[in-house]
């Protein structure tokens, strides 16, 4: 057992830290568009955008350990994201690199790295949530086009996206997973209607998307016809360590401790209340467990072993923590806990109403438990 980094890795960490020191001196306003433009240009020049991608496609070719170091240092300093095209960098790009034609790679990858526009993800449907492979949105072949009819839902940032990665059913007769195809669709194609959905925190980040005889050129199919499920699953497997999420949760925990120090409960700081203090300490144990679980998974990856269902462990911890941290914050605030803006400008209220974004998307906790029970413990499938 050894947590030490190699000299080359230490050197890389020092490089990242020096860059962050330069870019983020105390008082930096990261919301300033001029600063943000400069940030994006400089991290792109360093090839830290798409850092894990091969250098031939314009990525950084970073080793697993370097990726971890970069993510960890960024998260510690609360640095903004590396790159502007969130879903493009997270899974659309990896899917195109793995399954795309040469022409598709040249057309899309540089734009994703440069953050020219946003991508959205058309997976879920009204009748297909956790059971994604049951999706019904149809595409039939008409010459050198597919014609798409149907509906998607919970499509994040659909209204601000130029392109969508879309899963459709091209063969209604074959087995559920096999008749699915992946298309890349331009959002201004005639026949597409986007209708934003307001969520419980009052904002609208996701939308319903309707397809009415939408014509998609065959050259915009990603992978072979009927290969869509595989394209999706292997692209999601690009989702790697949970290091950045752990750092984010740790910052939240520190803020919660501060909140409990400042709020008064029964005439003394809430942090001096045994029950409250121990509940926060319990979060501390879960967050540190996530970090150490991540170290064990990372060790496995460094030995060249693929990660399997064990990544569901940290997803379950994260889901519970996202919900419970915000919930306890409101309890600590006491009778003011339900007031929209009374304490700290309402930041904990917003936090306590936004967890579904990370808890539901990408597999609900119940689905994660099924994955562990079936793939790790060998229990029969539902």
């Amino acid at each position, binding site marked *: 057992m050894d947590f030490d980094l190699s000299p080359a890795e230490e050197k890389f960490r020092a490089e990242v830290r020096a860059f962050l020191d330069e870019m983020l001196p105390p008082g930096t306003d990261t919301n300033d568009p001029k600063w943000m433009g400069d940030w994006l240009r400089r991290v792109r020049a360093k090839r830290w955008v798409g850092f894990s991608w091969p250098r031939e496609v314009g990525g950084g070719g970073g080793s697993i350990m370097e990726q971890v170091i970069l993510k960890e240092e960024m998260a510690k300093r609360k640095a903004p994201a590396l790159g502007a095209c969130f879903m493009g960098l997270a899974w659309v790009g990896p899917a195109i690199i793995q399954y795309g034609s040469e022409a598709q790679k040249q057309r899309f990858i540089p734009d994703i790295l440069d953050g020219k526009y946003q991508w959205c993800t058309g997976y879920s449907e009204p009748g297909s949530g956790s059971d994604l492979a049951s999706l019904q949105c149809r595409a039939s072949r008409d010459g050198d086009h597919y014609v798409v009819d149907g509906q998607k839902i919970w499509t994040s940032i659909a209204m601000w996206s130029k392109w969508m990665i879309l899963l459709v059913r091209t063969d209604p007769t074959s087995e559920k997973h096999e008749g699915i195809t992946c298309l890349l669709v331009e959002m201004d194609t005639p026949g597409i209607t986007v209708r934003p959905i307001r969520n419980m925190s009052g904002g609208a980040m996701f939308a319903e998307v309707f397809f009415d005889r939408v014509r998609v050129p065959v050259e915009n199919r990603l992978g072979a016809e009927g290969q869509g499920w595989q394209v999706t699953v292997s692209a999601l497997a690009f989702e790697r360590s949970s290091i950045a999420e752990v750092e984010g949760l740790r910052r939240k925990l520190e803020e919660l401790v501060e909140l409990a120090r400042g709020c008064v409960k029964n005439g003394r700081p809430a942090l001096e209340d045994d029950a409250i203090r121990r509940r926060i300490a319990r979060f501390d144990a879960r967050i540190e467990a996530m970090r150490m679980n991540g170290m*064990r998974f990372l060790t496995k990856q460094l030995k060249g072993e693929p990660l399997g269902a064990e990544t569901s462990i940290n997803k379950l911890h994260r889901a519970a923590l996202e919900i419970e941290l915000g919930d306890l914050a409101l309890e600590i605030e006491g009778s003011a806990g339900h007031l929209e803006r009374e304490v700290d400008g309402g930041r904990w209220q917003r936090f306590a109403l936004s967890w579904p974004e990370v808890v539901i998307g990408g597999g609900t906790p119940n689905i994660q438990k099924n994955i562990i029970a079936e793939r790790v413990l060998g229990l029969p499938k539902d």
Partner: protein
Amino acid sequence: MNFGFTEEQELLRQEVRKLLDAASPLETVRKVAETPEGYSRELWKQIAELGWLGLTIPEAHGGAGLGWVDLTVVLEEMGRTLFPSPFLATTLAAAAIADAGSDAQKQRWLSRLADGSRIATLAVLEAGDRPGPAGIQLAATPLGDGFALSGEKVQVLDGAAADLLVVAFRTGRAADDVALAVVERSAPGVAVENTPSIDATKRVARVRLDGARIAPDAVMGGAWPALARTLDRAAAAVTAEMVGAAEGALHLTVGYARQRSQFGSPIGRFQGVKHPLAEMYVDVESWKSLLYWAAWCIDRGEADAPRAVSLAKAYASEAFARIGIDAVQLHGGIGYTWEYDAQLYLKRSKWARPIFGDSDFHYDRVAAGWRAQGAA
């Protein structure tokens, strides 16, 4: 970066598992647990010969000089089969002597613990049930060049089997005015009484000292820092046994859920059964990760060691208690029976939860750390 075990450690695990599977399966454990001694002398000799008793004792004193990461491997396997033995007690007493003792004291006792000729234990906890230094109130009165000790210790692991008791006592008013004494169990004024646990595979005793005479060369003064480190090691060691026992409970219950059929289907198909099993897995893997980090911190002498230990033990104390209950409950009626093994794990969870600090104690230590740093 490598957060995994070495090849040697994996081999050690295999060796321990192989011996315990053959020599101490659960049916044997049940029989041994019913004997007055509560452990097998024959197996004790065998593990002494294999060098397990000296695993963490320095090489200069007849041990292998290995660390707490290595010990974790052994204790996980011992926990898996609920192995009844004064191994844990002796290892912890040796750790206290190795940390607090003078060269002469180490010379005198450690080699005899490493070769298994003496059994030893730590006697720290008292009636107030406070695991910290303030809980140590046992009084010493000067007598000749030495002391006479009077008072009572509880929850002394394998006290009835031990030849040597490493007793913590108070030497002054400051919180950490604490010393350790190595007391022969056979000495006048020492009375040991077994206090049966609902977990028959674990023996604990009440030790009464009534003017027990301690020679000056048996005293380790100013011992709180060493004892504090020993108690961290102890909590980590118990947490390692908890990993093995919880995995044993999970394995047993998963096996049952796959084979038991109701409503025309293995019950493991139902989410009401598979989800609690998945939660057990998540919890064991998570406190295991915390434990490995804690053991690594202990071996490296990292300042984070107490925090890491407390996070691991607090998590384990909470989660294993629930695993013990769920293991019985998910079995239905059969889990309630004496003959079926699920109950053994439930009882082990009751033993393990408070030993060397329950979750409240350890969560409070974690929180005290935030205050010291001014933030989390």
